[in-house]
């Protein structure tokens, strides 16, 4: 890490840093959910014949393991994520006049 980027990291608002870290974790959770859900559904639910139908609690087997279970799991993970991982922070006051930024913004 160069000195400049190190200084930049030191100056970075903690909320920006935590928001970015949380966004990365969320993207990984999304990717994991996709791999699980599409993978299992493809494995157990595509190209099958009527005779191969297995039901779990009334759902076709692939729906139960590929949709219902990950959906309930994701609800649990979302709760854990929100309670344990997401950090609260000050959002700050409203800028009343954007011209203050000096770019005519």
């Amino acid at each position: 890490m160069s000195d400049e980027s190190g200084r930049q990291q030191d100056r970075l608002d903690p909320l920006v840093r935590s928001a970015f870290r949380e966004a990365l974790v969320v993207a990984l959770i999304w990717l994991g959910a996709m791999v699980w859900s599409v993978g299992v559904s493809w494995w157990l639910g595509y190209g099958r014949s009527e005779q191969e139908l297995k039901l779990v609690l009334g759902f076709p087997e692939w729906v139960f393991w590929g949709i219902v279970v990950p959906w309930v799991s994701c609800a649990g993970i979302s709760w854990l994520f929100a309670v344990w991982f997401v950090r609260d922070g000050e959002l700050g006051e409203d800028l009343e006049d954007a011209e203050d930024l000096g770019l005519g913004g």
Partner: protein
Amino acid sequence: MWQAWNTGLLLAQQAGAAPQVGSGAMLMLVLFIVGSLWIGVLANRAASTGGFMKGFFLGNRGLGVWALALTATIQSGGTFMGFPSLVYSHGWIVALWIGSYMVVPITGFGILGKRLAQLSRRTGAITVPDMFRVRFGSPTLGLMSTLFILFYLSFLMFAQFKAGAIVLQLAWPGGGDLALSEDAAGISEWRYHVGLLVFATTVVAYTLAGGFLAAVWTDLFQSVLMFAGVMLLLVACLSAVGGLEQATLRSLANTGPGFVFGPGYSADGGQQQFLPLSLAISFFVVWIWGGVGAPAGLVRLMASQNTNVIRKSIYVLSIYNLGIYLPLIVICVCGRALLPDLAKSDEIVPRLALLTTADWPGGSLVAGLILAAPFGAVMSTVSSYLVVLSSGVVRDIYQRLLRPQAPREELRLAAWVTMILAGLISVAVMWSPPKYLQVFIVFSTSGAAATFLVPAIMACYWRRATPTGVATGMVSGAVVVLFLYLCGIMGWSPPQSIGAAGGFRPWFLLGLEPLIWGLLASGSSAVLVSLLTPPLPAEHISRLFDRRTGAEGEAV
């Protein structure tokens, strides 16, 4: 079990005769309309403190957990209209089509929520174009965003006006037709025109009174109504058919193996593949990133009260989504078991509502409650579009470009005139509506996400992003999606046998949804052009990204 099976059979036999909508449905809709107007008045009082612009267009950044959780990412009337029709037509595979909703709460709030709420305060932004304008110090970028939003929202709004009028038309006692589809018979009837006028007057009136808060609160109201409707219908359907196992087996017997396996059932004997692997992956991308990049959703994140609200919204919406989408799929699978041969698949929810509650005490009112849900969803969607649209015109064009010193009363008048004009234009355009506006809804949703997602992420997290890079990303994302849709509309694409049966399809290049190509184009071009153009001044970036200390903090 046997008794339930018998009841199911009886109900299925009764289904042969078309059920009629009783006065309960209209009563519920009238109650809903009165409730919405009352909400408009309450919102007017709440928004009248502080500055007009922030109060009327952003609810003074005061959204709490329930308002944010249940309104920022929920879909429009389609949840109760198009979606059940897909389940009825293609079977259990639609569970995979909508499966990505399991992570909508965490992505919708966890990717941009906190940072966007902070950035909008640091830039003083009231609208999405406002945020881009100040973040990148570029009035041109702000104006471009406004024009894109006006373009997409116009299509979306027209279609919703038509949907609202159709729901009122079918709720008319003795109205006959139950289909919610765009090509429902008798669309030119006087009932449609009366419905259109009542719908337009109601939604413009309460939005005019309460602005952003009225849109959010009616959205919350209809979300609760929808939850109650789904729960009631779930119990009614499962007891009518004799349990989920019976529902799956009987719907399989009524259709074929495609109903319980991928790539889904199609009435043409399997030539059309509803959800091949490429589209299954596509929709996991489309629903998630399309939702994150939707302008109406971005505004609500900007309006959130604090980070605690955003955090709690994640799990409140997780529970809500779990209680809506899986039950709706179960309901429509039950529908295929009870009513195997509906000519119009989008009749399924109203028909089930009438059929399964016929013997309940006050069954007509319960059916009315279930029918009122799509009306509420459409109304709240239009209301939020009206707010975003008028904020674009008033804040981003009138105040920024024409009358920077306009007083509060003049801005209020401009907002009202914009909303009334938008309502009048929508009524005029939809008086003799084109048949398949659904095409434009899908195009506008994908187009808006392809236009705004990458720029919003770059605005929040990438210091090196430049106005030219972001503008290039917006244009390239929009152009790619527009091109792939045009290819589908004009018949330029090669023959395709994937996607939903009937109607219109865009060009699924390499089997993927257009939004994926749009996002790839937008992301790559925005990064490349940003790296090739000079960065923004370090001081400007520092004010938006770095911690505030001492005198600087006070000054800003």
